[in-house]
């Protein structure tokens, strides 16, 4: 009995050993790799210096934090790490974390970026990162900018739908091949992140200027057949603060995280308003 017990025990041992060698080797390696990755992610020997704007609309200054570098790390990850481990009073705004909602835009090393999809590797200056609230907007606290002026201008530029038909009328048939629809389609993916607004020097110099996002919205309305009064759209964008304030610096198009082209939309509005003025005789 004891002999049989030992033999069955040995069989069990070998079968387990064989299983470990034969079948469990790959998963074991994966576990080791994962452990290495986790270790490297939490390895605090490589750090970067992150300057974060602290303050409100009246005053403020940069506060420096030492933040561990990771292989894959967005600027939003950095800000979150600071808020969760260093200072819970740090205020910042985010929601979706996947580039859909447009709420996490900040100035990163002097340029406006959507922080959830901006990798540290791409914007790090030496080992320094400078994060500030969006330019051209009032600061509420720390990294949170007051978006009211941005959205107010969206409304001022006619950024609402004025329908050409009621619910009792048939739905207008609009083909996606129509030139106007194709033109509108180039601009409709705006997520209102205000990156273009922060990048624009004309906005900085002229408080009345509607800005690239609002004007681009007006351009989509002008190209939308379902909008009733195109003339009203042109009226709103040709006045004080309208499209003719734009100096075509192109920063809006350069920095738009969604790859839209507000400069093209504003040029279209300029052309349309000039044609309208010529038709009217001034």
């Amino acid at each position: 009995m004891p002999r049989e017990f030992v033999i069955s025990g040995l069989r069990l041992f070998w079968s387990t050993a064989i299983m470990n060698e034969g079948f469990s080797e790959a998963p074991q390696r994966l576990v080791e790799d994962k452990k290495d990755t986790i270790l490297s992610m939490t390895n605090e020997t490589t750090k970067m210096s992150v300057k974060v704007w602290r303050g409100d609309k009246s005053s403020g200054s940069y506060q420096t934090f030492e933040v561990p570098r990771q292989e894959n790390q967005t600027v939003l990850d950095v800000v979150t790490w600071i808020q969760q481990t260093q200072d819970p009073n740090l205020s910042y705004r985010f929601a979706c974390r996947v580039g859909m909602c447009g709420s996490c835009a900040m100035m990163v090393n002097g340029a406006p970026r959507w922080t959830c999809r901006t990798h540290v590797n791409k914007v790090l200056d030496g080992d320094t990162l400078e994060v500030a609230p969006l330019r051209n907007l009032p600061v509420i606290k720390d990294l949170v900018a007051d978006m009211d002026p941005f959205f107010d201008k969206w409304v001022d530029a006619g950024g609402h739908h004025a329908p050409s038909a009621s619910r009792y009328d048939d739905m207008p048939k609009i083909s996606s091949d129509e030139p106007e629809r194709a033109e509108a389609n180039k601009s409709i993916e705006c997520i209102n992140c205000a990156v273009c607004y922060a990048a624009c020097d004309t906005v900085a110099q002229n408080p009345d200027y509607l800005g690239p996002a609002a004007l681009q919205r007006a351009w989509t309305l002008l190209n939308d057949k379902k909008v009733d009064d195109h003339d009203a759209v042109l009226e709103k964008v040709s006045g004080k603060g309208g499209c003719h304030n734009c100096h075509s610096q192109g920063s809006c198009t350069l920095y738009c995280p969604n790859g839209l082209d507000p400069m093209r939309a504003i040029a279209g509005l300029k052309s349309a308003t000039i044609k309208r003025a010529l038709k009217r005789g001034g």
Partner: protein
Amino acid sequence: MIKTHRNHPLWYAYALHRISGLALVLFLPAHFYVLSLALTQPERLDGFLHWTEIPAVKFAEFGLVFLLSAHLLGGLRLLALELLPWSPKHKTLAALAASGAVLISGTFLLNAV
């Protein structure tokens, strides 16, 4: 030190257009005043034209020709951007405008020396 968000070709094209425009605004009143001397005081105009033969003044004229041609070609680019069917090649057009200004003003300088 140029700010990061401005560090791209179309912003430099804007800056060149603005600076050349302002410089021409300062220059043109003096230019028209000197031309008016042809009608009011021809002798003074002749004396002034001799002064323009000085190399330093010729070099300054080269600068003026550069500013004028840069503003002219840059302005044509902006008119094309706003009024012609859209082309995404604005960096190329801005580079061509700047190159054209260097070519025109360089030709003026070579003729002057």
